[in-house]
């Protein structure tokens, strides 16, 4: 009998798949929730609503608010260039865009040091202008943008390829200029690809640890995002604080996923 053809083997595969997910994904996450609320809601809530905790939350949301729109605009533009304009350099650009996936975030953080650090290339000019990049918000934004750059491009390119150019050409014969065609035809046609890219970008920026950790210096109440706050609390043996912030992070990510599902369901109805 061929593999996977019988009812028994189908069930076997199902149990195996579910078991894998349960053991590696759901169990650890569930334990975090359990540990967080083990002694009631007060200890984690206190940790999150502490001045440092609130600041970390605000800073994390600020990263999302800056990095996600930037990478969305860049991602759509870049996908359009890659798919709609034939150029010999396209494969190279395509490969370079994947770099943030391939390189460890810590290395990305260190590379930013080489550019913006005290002996970095851009240091003299920036110092003169009075702009501080490292150990402050600009550096963290750059790191967040860097690590989450490929998502929108990667999700948009295949959708653009699939819709083809005929609808856009039809719009132009009907009098629409390039801008009108983009807003009325192209963007609506690729919107779910873009939306999925945005969700992945948001999740990545929310959770980014390595690169941001290197460039921020993780100064409490100043350059500490939620993931850095979690680490600090854990190091200080403040487990309720660490778990509380972790749950908050998980909830934020969950909310973006649910928001997309909700919009999509509304669209389909």
């Amino acid at each position: 009998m061929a593999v996977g053809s019988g009812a028994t083997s189908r069930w076997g595969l199902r149990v195996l798949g579910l078991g894998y997910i349960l053991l590696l994904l759901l169990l650890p996450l569930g334990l975090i929730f359990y540990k967080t609320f083990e002694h009631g809601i007060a200890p984690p809530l206190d940790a999150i609503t502490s001045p440092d905790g609130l600041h970390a939350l605000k800073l994390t949301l600020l990263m999302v608010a800056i990095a996600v729109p930037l990478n969305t605009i860049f991602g759509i533009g870049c996908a359009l260039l890659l798919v709609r304009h034939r150029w010999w350099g396209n494969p190279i650009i395509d490969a370079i865009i994947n770099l943030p996936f391939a390189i460890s975030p810590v290395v990305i953080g260190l590379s930013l040091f080489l550019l913006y650090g005290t002996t970095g290339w851009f240091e003299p000019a920036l110092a003169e202008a009075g702009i501080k990049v490292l150990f402050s918000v600009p550096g963290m934004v750059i790191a967040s943008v860097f690590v989450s750059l490929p998502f929108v491009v990667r999700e948009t390119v295949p959708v653009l390829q699939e819709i083809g150019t005929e609808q856009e050409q039809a719009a132009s014969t009907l009098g629409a200029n390039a801008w009108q065609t983009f807003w009325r035809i192209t963007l609506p046609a690729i919107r779910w690809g873009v939306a999925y890219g945005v969700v992945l970008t948001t999740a990545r920026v929310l959770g980014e640890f390595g690169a941001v950790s290197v460039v921020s210096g993780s100064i409490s109440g100043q350059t500490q995002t939620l993931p850095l706050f979690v680490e600090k609390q854990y190091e200080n043996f403040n487990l309720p604080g660490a778990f509380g912030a972790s749950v908050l992070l998980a909830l934020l990510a969950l909310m973006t996923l649910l928001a997309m599902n909700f919009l999509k369901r509304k669209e389909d109805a």
Partner: protein
Amino acid sequence: MGISVEGANKRFGDFQALEDVSIEVPTGSLTALLGPSGSGKSTLLRAIAGLESLDSGTVLIDGDDVGSKPTQKREVGFVFQHYAAFKHMTVYENVGFGLKIRKWDKKKISQRVHELLDLVQLPGLADRYPSQLSGGQRQRMALARALAVQPQVLLLDEPFGALDAKVRKDLRSWLRNLHDEMHVTTIFVTHDQEEAMDVAGQLVVMNEGRVEQSGTANDLYDHPANEFVMSFVGEVNQLGEHFVRPHDMEIVLDADDRTQEGLVQRIVTLGFEVRVELVLSDGTEVWAQLTRAELQRLELREGQIAYLRPIQAKSFNGSSPSGHGASTPHGSNDGGDAEIPAAV
């Protein structure tokens, strides 16, 4: 509102898509661009719409050189083979798209869209999405969308190519009637010679990026300029250097000095028409088109010997064929009528 193209050239890499193409489409006519795939007919149509740029040559619409105008300013209606329906819009929004771009007010758009949906026989489907329509309905929606903006010219790129045979036939006669009502200058690309002859008043036959001949369906059929046109427009048999239509092949049972001997291989009855396939002594395979009555009179059977007498033949070659009694004007550009010489 006529269209004329002069000296159009277009190359895609090594492929010469258009080679010094000139065509003249009179105002209000319905013209077919006919040719096999890769003949350049679609490229020419797209160049007229501005969807493709020419390497050289000019496109005039209503006497106006539109070479420097982008597509959206050429006021052409374009219908694509695969409909190019806006999938995220309803039928109503699709048809009203061009009007919305032109900033018509809502009431006027609504009036015009419903007029057009009546015209293309899709009333009551305004709120459907393209995915809920059949292929024929989608193409009629696409046509309504193109007509909504009252284009100067209407360009149709294999508009029925993706539809099944029955729907295609219905839409053909429907399009012809529509054109009789609207009188908008229309160019229609197709690879189907029957479709071209059925729909269009004027035909332009293209091959390998060049215009082979243009004229009415009768012109092309009766006076083909060359071998390609003769064999592409209508069926043809080749006997040496001569081309004979299957209905110009007479079958007789007695040989004379103007017949050729052939072995009847197959007899296919297609309703009124009968196809008789023969092999000549030199191995050439030909077929003759007979009526049922002729077949019955001849009492032909598969496997027997019969004699072929071409009533009318054409030759496009300058060299004179051997044989007796053949008067053959050769070398003229519109093909020569020739009598076939007897078997050697």
